[in-house]
């Protein structure tokens, strides 16, 4: 599944930042505890030095035991293996009726040849509380930091990527046929985007040039081809009037004529496609589709001796705003298609209402991708009868008028639907 840049970025931050912050806070905690213990040790040391000094100055008046402060034990030998390190212990506070945590340090002292055990106490409670408070404060700060980083990051990436999204929007609206102008700002303030936009501008310019050239080429080629076709036609007209015409040459001539007519038709259709591409049908009007369709159907029924059985349900007065010539071409191509790609004793069904036009005809299934039928020079099985441009024209015209077209093959019928909305 794809996500937006922002989602991806936030996700990334939310996965890795807490991890980093967690490791950081563990480190912080360890160091905090270490420093607190170090401080306690120093306190114990200092206290011990002070008490011992006081004791050696006035041994008689000195109280030897103060709970939670110190113990001086005369004639006591401390085991040498005891570490010269503070230890934790707890004493019972009789007033508060609870155990209180202390850190203690016991050392072996010698005075006037006698051994003394000196133990000093420092309460751990305050230090522990301090550690917890500092640590909590740190957690709060880190959480705040996390939130701030994510928010700042989102804001800044929104700002950073803004030119990119603008570019994306414009690129999406670009269409080589209908919307070929795409000018991207190459002064976005960000080098990479400037570069991107610059490159895209150049690319689009190239594409447009190539497309224009190609359109121009098709149009020019078709125009150029018309003259030779006209010459062949005129010469054939002389030939068929030749008194020396034999049946064999007549048959050859008939084939040449048919081929030349096909060439001429191909040419006309190509030219038509090029013209639609070149937007040479700009004038639109209110077109009564029902009337045009009826007229075309009638014409075709006259044209073909074996016109397939026709059933129709055409609502009257269905109108649309379009170019009349193009509507005629569209409808007559669809009808012609239904006649040519039919079977013996087949049928055609035509339906027109406010929503759609349906032309269905009996016929053999087309092999391959049906979408391809609307491409230029993609033909079904009756290839020799057609130019392969009829449905391409249909597609082009529907695209120009922003109509949706759909092809289906079901129940041994080709069914083409044009939706008007």
């Amino acid at each position, binding site marked *: 599944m794809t996500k937006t840049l922002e989602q991806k970025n936030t996700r990334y931050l939310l996965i890795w930042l807490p991890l980093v912050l967690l490791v950081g806070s563990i480190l912080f905690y360890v160091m905090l505890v270490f420093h607190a213990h170090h401080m306690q040790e120093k306190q114990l040391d200092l206290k011990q030095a002070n008490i011992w000094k006081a004791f050696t100055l006035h041994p008689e008046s000195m109280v030897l035991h103060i709970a939670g402060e110190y113990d001086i034990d005369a004639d006591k030998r401390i085991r040498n293996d005891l570490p010269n390190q503070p230890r934790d212990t707890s004493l019972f506070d009789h007033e508060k009726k609870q155990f209180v945590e202390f850190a203690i340090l016991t050392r072996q002292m010698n005075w006037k040849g006698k051994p003394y055990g000196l133990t000093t106490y420092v309460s751990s409670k305050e230090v522990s509380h301090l550690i917890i408070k500092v640590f909590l404060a740190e957690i709060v700060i880190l959480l705040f930091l996390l939130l701030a980083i994510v928010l700042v990051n989102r804001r800044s990436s929104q700002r950073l990527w803004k030119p990119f999204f603008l570019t994306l929007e414009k690129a999406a609206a670009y269409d080589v046929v209908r919307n070929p102008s795409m000018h991207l700002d190459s002064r976005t303030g960000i080098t990479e985007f400037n570069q991107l936009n610059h490159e895209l501008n150049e690319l689009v310019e190239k594409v447009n040039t190539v497309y224009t050239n190609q359109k121009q080429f098709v149009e020019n080629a078709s125009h150029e081809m*018309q003259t030779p076709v*006209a010459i062949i036609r005129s010469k054939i*007209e002389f030939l068929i009037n030749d008194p020396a015409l034999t049946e064999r040459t*007549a048959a050859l001539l008939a084939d040449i*004529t048919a081929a030349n007519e096909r060439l001429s038709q191909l040419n006309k259709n190509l030219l038509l496609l090029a013209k639609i591409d070149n937007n040479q049908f700009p004038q639109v009007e209110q077109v009564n589709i029902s009337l045009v369709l009826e007229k075309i159907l009638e014409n075709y029924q006259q044209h073909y001796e074996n016109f397939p059985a026709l059933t129709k349900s055409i609502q009257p007065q269905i109108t649309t705003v379009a170019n009349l010539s193009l509507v005629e071409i569209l409808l007559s191509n669809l009808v012609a298609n239904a006649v040519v790609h039919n079977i013996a004793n087949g049928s055609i069904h035509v339906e027109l209402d406010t929503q759609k036009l349906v032309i269905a005809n009996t016929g053999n299934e087309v092999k391959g991708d049906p979408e391809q039928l609307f491409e230029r020079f993609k033909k079904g099985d009756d290839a020799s009868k057609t130019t392969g441009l009829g449905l391409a024209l249909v597609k082009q015209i529907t695209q120009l008028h922003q109509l949706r077209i759909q092809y289906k093959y079901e129940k041994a019928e080709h069914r083409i639907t044009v939706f008007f909305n």
Partner: protein
Amino acid sequence: MKLLVIEDEESLLQSIVEYFTLEDFLCEGAGSFQQGIEKMEDFQYDCIILDINLPGGSGLDLLKYLRKNKKSEGVIIISARSSLDDKIAGLDLGADDYLTKPFHLSELFARVKSLIRRKYASGSDTLEINHMKVDLLLKTVEWAGKQVVLTKNEYDLLLFMLTNKNRVVSRQAIAEHIYGEETDNLASFDFVYSHIKNLKKKMKEKGCGDLIQTVYGLGYKLSI
């Protein structure tokens, strides 16, 4: 009848000139803009067939020149450019008709004939050949005084064949003449056959003999 054809494609020019000469036209050709101007200045024609793309200038400019000098020749434009704008521009400039390449010579001939009839046949709107009498205004046909009732398509067909009488006219030319641009999509010429069949039948009923012959499946010939 004097005719000037201005067309730069020599082979096509030759065909047109030959076709019209065979039909008893006094026909001259010009292959360029300059030649066209010279011929137009020196002679008077009944009709000018004009190509738009010419070496040395546009046929439309020739047309402008012609109309500026108050020459009233009938002008038919033949052009490879079939765009509507060209058509409108040509007709606006005073062309009488417009034909897109590739065209059939029989069609061009019919257009020229029709133009000349419109322009010069003062008063007389009937066409009489043998027993055939065609009223061009009412679009009615009589054979030996008896009216033949024809559909519009049959009438068009008959008039076209009559204009090109005693010549073989191809099925394609007939199809295009009757249905115009729409023949684009007609792979079948069934309808030409059935129209001819009906026309022959109706003529026969009025006592007209074998008016139209089929020529090897290439086309038809009206002999009169």
